């Protein structure tokens, strides 16, 4: 029994869709899970009832709605509600796909940097374009904090500009690394259980209890991380959008 904790991240083309330049565009297992996530969200939001007294499914849909709406209002103000559909889409997409990804034998979309980077760049360019469109040159005030002595202002501005352009990096790597590391750790500890059992016989099965307990604990942690990282991604999006809406700090 060989532990291969990386195998779960393999991209396997299911069928080829076509070519762009010399890139082959395939419908992969990743694509499949993306559409599963979209389908699950659509089911949750559209198939739930519209009763006055909500049932279970409807409650989940409404709690998601209220949760995201409250997050936006508290971080980006009432004007941030313009981006409600975007932030709701991002949060639900990541939350649902992460939670689906914790199920054994499934694929986790956000364990690939290209996906998280694409979403982070989407947010980055939304902030940049909306900020410039709405505030014009005043948008650059976000690089000039008020109340800073003039002699250290250039240094502060340099740091602000740098951190602004590094945002998509930290934004995407945080989610990617969390999901990747969590799944590897889970796979390694789960692999120990099977390895001990297959190689040492009865003694191994007894010895496997410890890594099994760890796997269970890690699994609970991963469930939390799956939700939490989606939430962190969404709330950072709100905070970045707040800069575009109110650039004056």
């Amino acid at each position, binding site marked *: 029994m060989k532990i291969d904790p990386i195998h779960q991240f*393999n991209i396997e083309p299911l069928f080829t869709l076509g070519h762009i330049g010399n890139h082959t*565009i395939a419908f992969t297992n990743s694509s499949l899970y993306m559409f599963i996530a979209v389908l699950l969200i659509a089911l949750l939001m559209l198939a739930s009832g*519209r009763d006055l007294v909500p049932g279970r499914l409807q409650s989940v849909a409404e709690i998601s709605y209220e949760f995201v709406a409250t997050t936006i209002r508290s971080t980006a103000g009432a004007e941030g509600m313009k981006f409600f559909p975007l932030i709701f889409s991002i949060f*639900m997409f990541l939350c649902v796909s992460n939670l689906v990804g914790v199920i054994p034998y499934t694929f986790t979309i956000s364990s690939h940097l290209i996906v998280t980077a694409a979403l982070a760049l989407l947010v980055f360019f939304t902030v940049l374009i909306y900020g410039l469109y709405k505030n014009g040159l005043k948008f650059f005030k976000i690089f000039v904090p008020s109340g800073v002595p003039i002699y250290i202002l250039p240094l502060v501005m340099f740091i602000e500009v740098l951190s602004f352009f590094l945002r998509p990096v930290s934004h995407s790597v945080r989610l990617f690394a969390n999901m990747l590391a969590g799944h590897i750790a889970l796979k390694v500890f789960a692999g120990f259980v099977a390895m001990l059992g297959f190689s040492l016989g009865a003694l191994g099965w007894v010895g496997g209890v410890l890594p099994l307990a760890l796997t269970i604990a890690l699994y609970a942690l991963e469930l939390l991380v799956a939700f939490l990282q989606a939430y962190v991604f969404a709330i950072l999006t709100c905070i970045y959008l707040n800069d575009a809406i109110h650039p004056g700090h």
Partner: protein
Amino acid sequence: MAESHGEAKGQAAGAHTEAEGGHHGGAFPPFDSSNYASQLVSLAIAFVALYLIVSRIALPRVGGTIDARQNKIEGDLAEAQKLKDESDAALKAYETELANARANAQAIGNETREKLNAASEAERKALEEKLAAKLADAEKQIATTRTNAMSNVRGIAADAAGAIVQQLSGVTPDANAVNSAVDASLKG
């Protein structure tokens, strides 16, 4: 993205096929640029579809349900407040009505009592007057009878006194003297 163009596609694709075999001698899958394009295309399609579903249908629908519930609750509360105000007003009206009725009843009772009192008083007075008149009549009759009886007694006494004097002295006394003597003795 940009860095993926620089790499040799064929090698990456080859490594990828190997990795599928189970032993990961090729690139670490998240950094294998050969599958970036596929992922980006499907992510774009899936995310745009999700965004459209969410912004066009899902959020208006769920938001509408929540707003409808909010409005319904506020409407119901307002309705309840209105009904409460109405019942309060009705209670107040009932209480004033009751107080009025009680005052009326008191007034009617007093009036009736006074009327009855006056009537019985008048009746009593009339009866007393009638009785007094009868009493006076009766007293007058008694007085008349007594006077008559007294004058009869005087005549009889005078006669008897005259007869007694005559018997004793043999002299017929003067009538006037006898009368005055009888009167004096009756008075005394």
